[in-house]
């Protein structure tokens, strides 16, 4: 096997963008005010949209169920605020598509006490009960992917989970959400890990943290409960170490086979903020109503880490923190993989880990595109060990099938490292995203044909 000669403690290749975390990593998490109207899209996770069970004009209590899961790969949605359902209709989402959604007007005078549900005891509950509890709480991956957590935790028939990895890497520049959660919510994280170990049957758990969050690692180590089979591992800083596959390689020196999930090597990876949410909600049988978000970037006046209700309109958020005159681009997520927002009328969703505002002068406008000069920088950057230069050339000729069959296009997870280093400013990831979409579509069509 070629899995032997690894450098210890890290994955191959990767990049070192400026971290840009200094402005927010020391700021404690602060509660954000309630917006007058909360707008909740039902499609804010991967999978089927939630199904609305309330009607217009109905009064709801904070934490009350508004929509139920639309299937197994789906989660329910809870009221982030006490108020009245003003309208049910289509709402804009970041992808540009409209989604069914709820307009919830907050009661200004409400105490905003949260409704309690059926508590789940980690010591007595079965794995199935815990998974059900996680789904009922509406929990999705808070690292950004927003994949329903209970689906990820379900160990397939015949597989065994040996190690549970808690992802505290937060390798995206600017973001300090997980950093603050680790510093301030250690009890919730440990409680969450207790549930997660029970649900997956894993024998041990490791929290992976990058060296630029040594204080968080020390803090967790100091409060580590003795009864948990849990260790903390500090890794050298490198992007994209927070990607599941890279993190597994860094921690366990194992590679996840192409086209498969971590469980193939006996691992399940959960983000630390997701674990904290599980530890906080399940003992009370509550649903998720808010999340920690880093709001930062050169265009923001009051930078910080805020606890913001899900469904808060982006416009309200930016007006509250204040932005510079010259704002040019707003991103949901980090600067490497985050998505540019075209419309301030979209809302904060469960998967929003950061809001980044760049002004005109921060946006790389002078980046003139040159031809590929075969400098090899992209080859040295790609953590999947692809040849982005070659893929880029093939993409220009629209040779998508060849890209997939001969050069492993589908293994690209769009981390952006190749584009980041390319001196010719070739938008490689953009090409690959498009190419992957075309290949997926063609494959789906082929399947339909062979069935017909």
């Amino acid at each position, binding site marked *: 096997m070629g899995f032997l000669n690894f450098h210890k403690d890290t994955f191959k290749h990767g990049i070192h963008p400026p971290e840009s975390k200094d402005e927010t990593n020391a700021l404690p998490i602060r509660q954000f005010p309630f917006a007058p109207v909360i707008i909740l899209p039902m499609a804010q996770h991967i999978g089927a949209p939630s199904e609305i069970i309330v009607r217009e004009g109905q009064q709801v209590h904070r934490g009350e169920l508004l929509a139920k899961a639309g299937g197994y790969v789906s989660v329910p949605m809870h009221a982030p605020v006490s108020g009245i359902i003003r309208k049910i209709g289509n709402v804009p989402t970041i992808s540009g598509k409209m989604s069914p959604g709820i307009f919830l007007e907050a009661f200004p005078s409400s105490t905003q006490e949260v409704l309690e549900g059926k508590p789940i005891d980690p010591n007595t509950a079965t794995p199935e009960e815990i998974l059900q509890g996680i789904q009922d709480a509406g929990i999705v991956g808070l690292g950004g992917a927003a994949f329903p957590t209970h689906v990820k935790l379900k160990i397939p028939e015949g597989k065994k989970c040996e190690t549970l990895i808690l992802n505290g890497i937060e390798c995206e520049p600017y973001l300090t959400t997980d950093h603050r959660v680790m510093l301030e919510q250690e009890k919730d994280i440990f409680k969450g890990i207790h549930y997660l170990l029970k649900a997956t049957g894993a024998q041990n758990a490791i929290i992976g943290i990058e060296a630029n969050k040594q204080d968080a690692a020390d803090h967790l180590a100091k409060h580590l409960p003795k009864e948990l089979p849990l260790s903390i591992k500090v890794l050298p800083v490198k992007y994209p170490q927070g990607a599941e596959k890279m993190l597994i390689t860094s921690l366990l020196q194992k590679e996840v086979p192409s086209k498969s999930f971590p469980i193939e090597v006996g691992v399940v990876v959960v983000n630390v903020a997701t674990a904290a949410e599980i530890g906080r909600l399940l003992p009370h049988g509550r649903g998720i109503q808010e999340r920690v978000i880093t709001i930062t970037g050169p265009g923001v006046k009051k930078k910080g880490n805020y606890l913001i209700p899900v469904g808060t309109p982006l416009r309200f958020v930016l007006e509250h923190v204040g*932005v510079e005159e010259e*704002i*040019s*681009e707003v991103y949901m997520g980090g*600067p490497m993989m985050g998505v540019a927002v075209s419309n301030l009328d979209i809302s904060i969703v469960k998967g929003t880990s950061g809001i980044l505002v760049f002004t005109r002068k921060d946006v790389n406008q002078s980046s*003139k595109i040159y031809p590929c000069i075969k400098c090899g920088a992209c080859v040295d950057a790609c953590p999947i060990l692809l040849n982005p230069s070659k893929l880029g050339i093939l993409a220009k000729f629209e040779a998508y099938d060849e890209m997939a069959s001969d050069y492993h296009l589908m293994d690209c997870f769009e981390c952006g490292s190749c584009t980041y280093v390319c001196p010719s400013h070739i938008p490689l990831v953009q090409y690959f995203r498009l190419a992957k979409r075309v290949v997926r579509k063609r494959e789906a069509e082929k399947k339909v044909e062979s069935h017909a």
Partner: protein
Amino acid sequence: MLKKTLDISSSPHIYKGRSTDDIMKNVVWALLPVVFFASYSFGLNALLVIFTATLACVLTEHLLCKLSKKETTVNDYSAVITGLLLGLTLPPSFPLWMAFVGGVIGIALGKYIFGGLGYNVFNPALVARAVLQAAFPVAITTWHPAFLPDRFTNISRSIFTWPFMQPQFDAISGATPLSAFKFDGITASTAELAFGQISGSTGETCAVIIALGGLYLIARNMMSWRIPVAVLLSAFVLSGALYLMDSALYPSPFFMLFSGGLMLGAVFMATDMVSSPITPVGLWIYGGIIGILTIVIRIWSGLPEGVMYSILLANAISPHIDTLVKHRVYGTTKKIKAT
């Protein structure tokens, strides 16, 4: 109040902030000391030759862009590099009109017909130099010594030869160390070679300054260190082995390393990114081929110098070198072709 329209762009939203023209500019910076030293040791002659070649390259690039109604690509600095490199491979008293023709050929034939920057198969400066060698075999092998006392006041007559006229070379012309060895069996001392106390092409003389320029680019991560190391190492090992076998017949490996255009070729010409392989293993193979071929040509062929032909040949096969290289993608066990 918040503005209504926002710009959107595809991720990533930050960049390393080093662009292709930055890299090219830095190569020019690294070449400038070599140009200065050439002008210092060969005087006005060298300066004129290098300047003319560079001017020809830049003008040609600009004109060709204009003719094909494209935005000019002069400001990516690649034409300047081609011009400087070409000038540095020519003898100091080379007729200027020939140097000009060389510059035009380098850009037009060496780069433009392939599709411009990024598409050239060969190093354009070497294409120009090869064509000049074939067209003007006498002029391109007529050297004159370095450090002539009147070098800053006197310009060789040959420089101003009218186009298509037979150049008149000055009485004092010197043999390069390589041809002296090849045809008369004399080897120059390593120190003389390393500090450029010899005759040769304008830029083929001071190996130390060339190496420093290379180190600068390597330190700034703008050049592959593997290529010069592979070229010099393979040349050193092969010539060293020969020297150990018979030190009377073969020159010392240090002589081989520091004489002729090997240093300039290894550091500034073989490293042209576009015409060299992209995979690390490919770079080693490519450099090794250049080093070994250079020694083979120098010792066993009728030519005194072999760097140029070695690099051109390696340029031609560099895409195939990459194709031979196999590598493994993350999460797979089978090796696939790299390019």
